[in-house]
């Protein structure tokens, strides 16, 4: 008996240790970013243009750029991703082709982001002649986000019991009516989670926007989706490696803004999710 008890204690201790190994570094990183960056945050920093070779002023163009890029990514990736997931989950039969598609999606999720950047440069910037633009950057980020959205949305759709589809059909519903009225509303919390996770990854990426949209410095804000823009992740890279004599506080300030942006998107997602989950009644 006693031996078991000790083994159990050791086991628990190991598990707690494993959890701490994950959580503590994250907390330390967040703590450092907040404590070193908070001094830079003020109204000017958030709303003004950069000045003095970016060593003073604000980072508003980068914040706006990241928001625009995320919006563009959402517009491109959500309809295609959710549509693809509906097709795979509800319409496609289990054939060699669909299995190949699923395999491709899994593999796409594992491709390094810089490869997406080069792909975007080749396809959108050069071949389709969009130039380095928000459009090209958004589409590149969208392609990178698609595997995440498709696989999580498909999983959410499959989690809806088959019986609901059968019942809907038995009441004279077409396949689409069953999806539209029963399956999609039930799968929505899961789909939203997947979409937000994908968008968050897109918002924080540097490599895919490096060749397709991001500007080192722009004197004015973008006027259309065909303009270049600054963006937070790339700006962070620039101010921490490319600008000599950059005040440390401003570097951490940029990191803090990016972190806060991603975190607040995450919180919004949780709120939407719990709202829909409360409405779910089975």
């Amino acid at each position, binding site marked *: 008996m006693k031996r078991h008890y000790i083994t159990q204690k050791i086991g628990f201790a190991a598990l707690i240790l494993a959890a701490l190994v994950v959580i503590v570094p994250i907390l330390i990183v967040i703590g450092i970013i907040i404590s070193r960056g908070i001094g830079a945050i003020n109204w000017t920093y958030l709303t003004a243009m950069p000045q003095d070779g970016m060593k003073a002023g604000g980072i508003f163009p980068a914040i706006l750029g990241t928001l625009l890029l995320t919006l563009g990514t959402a517009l491109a990736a959500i309809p295609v991703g959710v549509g693809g997931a509906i097709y795979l989950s509800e319409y496609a039969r289990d054939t060699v082709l669909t299995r190949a598609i699923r395999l491709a999606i899994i593999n796409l999720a594992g491709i390094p982001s810089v490869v997406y950047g080069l792909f975007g440069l080749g396809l959108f910037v050069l071949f389709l002649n969009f130039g380095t633009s928000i459009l090209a950057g958004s589409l590149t980020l969208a392609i990178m986000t698609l595997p995440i959205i498709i696989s999580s949305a498909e999983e959410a759709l499959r989690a809806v019991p088959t019986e*609901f589809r059968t019942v809907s*059909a*038995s*009441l*004279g*519903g077409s396949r689409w009516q069953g999806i539209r*009225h029963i399956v999609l*509303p039930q799968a929505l919390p899961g789909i939203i989670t997947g979409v937000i996770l994908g968008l968050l990854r897109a918002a924080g990426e540097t490599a895919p926007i490096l060749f397709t949209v991001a500007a080192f410095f722009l004197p004015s804000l973008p006027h259309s989706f065909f303009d270049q823009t600054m963006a937070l992740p790339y700006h962070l890279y620039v101010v921490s490696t490319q600008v000599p004599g950059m005040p440390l506080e401003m570097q951490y300030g940029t990191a803090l803004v990016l972190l806060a942006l991603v975190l607040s998107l995450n919180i919004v997602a949780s709120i939407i999710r719990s709202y829909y989950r409360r409405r779910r009644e089975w």
Partner: protein
Amino acid sequence: MPQTKIRIEHVNYYYGQTQVLKDVTLDVAEKAITVFFGPSGGGKTTLLRLINRLNDLVDGTTLEGNIYLDGRDIYNPEVNVPELRRQVGMVFALPLPLPGTIRENVLYGPMLANAENGTQEDEILFRSLNQAALWDEVKDRLDDAASELSGGQQQRLCIARSLALEPDVLLLDEPTSGLDPISTAKVEESLFKLKQDYTIIVVPHSIQQAGRIADEAAFFLMGEMVEHQSGEKIFTNPQHKQTEDYITGRFG
């Protein structure tokens, strides 16, 4: 002799290589309760699901033979399948309320058919819930979640949901298998009322239930339809040895 509502002619049915229905021929009488009974694996549920083409949703199946509803071949490519399913309602073994309120459940079918409008809605709600013997229990809580009802109430809600479409035929697959005796009695009671207007086919969950409700009865064994008689005859004086052995409890 009652009118024939559904004619099943030489139906063979296969899941992949496995044959689950073997040359089944059967006439189903109009405005009466016909039961399909027999040990499990006999093909009763499969035949039921063929009558409103729900088995279309299953891949890898083969159907031979014909099924006629009012003399019309329901597997004719020109048949509008959603329309057929509105005409032939289905109630499943487990109560499966859709997510949403009682009202939404009843009105789901009519909503898809675009048949309802504001004034008809209340009428449909009252008529179908009343026919399913549920109206008195839920009339004050139509906007409560359907999942809050008891199992027996949920199953009557599922019957009401089918009735909301004013079908001709009602198929019930072991509708009382998960219910207590009181709820079972209520469901059976509503079936007795309904048979005046509807053609009803029930796969009963026990031989006793088959005896209680059957006007007509067909005995299924291993995919074959062994015997089809009036309920009175088949349970008192079965013609086939296998039927007798099953009814008297020698196997099953």
